[in-house]
């Protein structure tokens, strides 16, 4: 049956093994950007490990250094945008282009690469489905097909994907780096064209920042897509401190994503295990868990958060991800209850199915029954609630940083960008609060849309062909 509608790769390529071609494309794609992937993983783990009082921190630093040596195609070195005008042309930028254009090309190529990578994954799935899988249909196929027809869900997926790409490729995407522009701005120098002196000069980044602050209507303020007086391009303008807002935001996305994923992953894990246990054993176990979750729900999350941040401040735990780890733990510890409530119903429903009895009758172990015969039926709900809670977690983190809780300065965080700009909302420096605010709204909407799409895809009764999916339910903290 595969012959009738051959895959594109099967007809285009002179080989009988499309899988090999697919794997080769993957290898090339990965080789091009392997450094960025490893950099992201090592960076995330490294932040976690270097502050823990465990041996191996030195090892992590060594690995980080080693990873930096991996050649990467789309890197700051290959397509540089840090350059200066020497009076007649741009020096040090990619192909001698203006820095803004060089940065634009780099950012566009990163996203292009990411979408090609996504296409490669989709191609692999379709190849597997058509050529290699023995069954020509499984229930999951219908879900995938329904999702493909769900425009609102696809919109969510694209937004979420772009957000993840931003987090993974954060160091490459920014026009400058956190280290150079923020953390150690007085240890780094830049070269620039001094138009008054008509000569190329050098100055400290910190000094340059002071001269490009956006504070209301001051003449030095740098609005989105503008250059400052030092020839530096700022896609989103500058912060009141003169730091680059875009770099601040891409770097903050990493933190939001990691904390969001961590807290949602943890609470989803707790919620799913407890839902399975409650549904399998029912009776007293179930009642006990209902009581436990109700008690946790009754705790005031914000007060608990303030208390724990104070209690834990100064300990190594509070230093992981600048306090984000503690946030994630608190979100997980209090947030699992809502997810558990939502999962318990479907889990109880599955537990009534006869194949559970059948498995029990032939002596399957309870844990295996839960994992093999029940879990697959609630993973869909896990995805939906997980995706929606993730949006909520991102809002919460931003909200807390806005209030000055949670993520310690100077670590970039979206909520703090809003906070920093709130004095200037009605002035000429309107961009500082507006841009991160819009981005948070967009990303959270994306996560909720993705959740909606997944829900409609999983539920065969929902009619995904009607296009009013946008009326779906919202997430929230």
């Amino acid at each position, binding site marked *: 049956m595969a012959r009738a509608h051959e895959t594109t790769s099967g007809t285009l390529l002179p080989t009988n093994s499309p899988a090999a071609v697919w794997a080769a494309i993957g290898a090339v794609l990965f080789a091009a950007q392997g450094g960025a992937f490893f950099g992201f993983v090592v960076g995330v783990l490294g932040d976690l490990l270097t502050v823990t009082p465990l041996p191996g921190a030195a090892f992590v630093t060594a690995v980080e250094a080693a990873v930096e040596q991996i050649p990467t195609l789309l890197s700051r070195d290959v397509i540089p945008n840090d350059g200066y005008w020497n009076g007649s042309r741009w020096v040090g930028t990619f192909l001698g282009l203006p820095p803004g254009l060089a940065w634009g090309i780099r950012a566009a190529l990163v996203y292009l690469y990411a979408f090609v990578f996504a296409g490669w994954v989709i191609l692999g799935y379709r190849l597997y489905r058509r050529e290699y899988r*023995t*069954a020509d249909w499984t*229930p999951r196929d219908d879900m995938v097909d329904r999702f493909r027809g769900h425009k609102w869900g696809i919109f969510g997926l694209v937004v979420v994907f772009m957000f993840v790409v931003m987090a993974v490729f954060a160091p490459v995407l920014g026009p400058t780096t956190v280290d150079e522009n923020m953390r150690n701005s007085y240890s780094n120098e830049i070269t620039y064209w001094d138009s008054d002196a008509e000569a190329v000069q050098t100055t400290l980044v910190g000094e340059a920042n002071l001269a490009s602050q956006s504070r209301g209507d001051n003449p030095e303020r740098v609005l989105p897509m503008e250059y400052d007086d030092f020839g530096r391009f700022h896609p989103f303008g500058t912060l009141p401190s003169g730091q680059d807002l875009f770099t601040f935001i891409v770097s903050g996305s990493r933190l939001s994503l990691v904390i969001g994923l961590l807290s949602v992953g943890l609470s989803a894990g707790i919620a799913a295990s407890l839902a399975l246990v409650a549904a399998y054993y029912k009776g007293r176990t179930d009642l006990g868990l209902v009581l436990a979750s109700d008690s946790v729900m009754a705790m005031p999350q914000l007060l608990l958060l303030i208390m724990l941040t104070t209690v834990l401040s100064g300990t190594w735990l509070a230093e992981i991800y600048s306090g984000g780890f503690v946030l994630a733990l608190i979100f997980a510890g209090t947030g699992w209850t809502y997810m558990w409530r939502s999962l318990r119903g479907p889990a109880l429903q599955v537990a009534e*199915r*006869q*194949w559970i009895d*059948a498995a029990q*009758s*032939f*002596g399957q172990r309870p844990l295996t029954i839960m994992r093999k015969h029940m879990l697959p039926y609630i993973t869909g709900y896990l995805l939906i609630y997980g995706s929606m809670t993730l949006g909520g977690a991102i809002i919460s983190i931003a909200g807390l940083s806005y209030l000055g809780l949670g993520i310690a300065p100077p670590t970039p965080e979206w909520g703090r960008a809003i906070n920093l700009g709130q004095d200037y909302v009605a002035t000429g420096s309107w961009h500082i609060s507006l841009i991160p605010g819009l981005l948070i709204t967009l990303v959270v909407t994306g996560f909720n849309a993705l959740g909606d799409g997944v829900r409609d895809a999983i539920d065969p009764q929902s009619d995904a062909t009607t296009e009013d999916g946008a009326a779906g339910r919202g997430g929230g903290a």
Partner: protein
Amino acid sequence: MSVGPDEEPLLAVRDLEVVFHTEREEIHAVDGVSFDIHEGETVGLVGESGSGKSVTARSILGLVDSPGSIEGGKVGFRGDDLTDDNWERHRGDIAIVFQDPSNSLNPVYTVGNQIKEALRIHQGLRGNEATDAAVGLLEDVGIPDPRRRVEEYPHQLSGGMQQRAVIAMALACDPDLLVCDEPTTALDVTIQAQILDLLADLQREEDLAILFITHDMGVIEDATDRVNVIYAGEIVERAPTGTLFSEPAHPYTEALLRSIPGRTNAAERLPTIEGEVPTPTGRAEDCRFAPRCPYAFAECHEMPPEHVDVGAERSAACLLHEDGSEEAAERTVFDGSEAVSGGDSA
């Protein structure tokens, strides 16, 4: 196939009490049920919906879920009392086939995968060995082209095929006793006959004992050696199949037989039993069938009847047969145990 009552039975259910605790009341779904199954025989358990058939079946396998629990009596299997937490010890010796085959198979795994799961637990088979064994089992239950079918998902099989696969899954445990809980109810008549034939063949080949649970008297007549008639959680009559059909002793059995199409020739309208099976919310204080019984008299509403012998290997719980004779009461088939009054061990 018929075995002397003196021989040690394979399964001996004694005074089984299963109670469901709901918020408003206690439901005695199974109230003092006793019966035996000997090696290699087929015993029927017949009754209306809600009479406690399936709960009895599930108790034998220890599958009664909360809020229900076994609160009295014994389930003896090969000399061990299963209710004494011996279920794990005899896991696989008793297998069950449920009513709806499409619901007994997990739709996300292939048929082979699910049979192999049982094979792995009970025969320690893995990999190719397990696949071969699964193919063999599918062949035994009469599925054509088992090599291909073993890779297929449940939805790719017809209802009859699915039930065969479920039976294969049960056989993978290599059981001594197969509990069939309405195995043919969800199937159409021709497939039903095929499954009954299959079960009979398997019984002959593997020397299986079968507990056959159904509400279909026709199936009982075809498939079983002895029958227990259950009503509102109590067994009201037990008899060899032939005699039960020729001369029913309990008014309920009689009424059941009258309502089989084609057996009664006179009436144009099929006689029915008026009323519904009562929900047994407490211990029996009267005959539970009395409100629907055409022969009921005053005493029927005052005391629960006990099982009395009404012929060779048969007994009925009905005051019509009691005749005031204490000897008769003592000679009940099941060593004097009383099906109605039950134990007070709960």
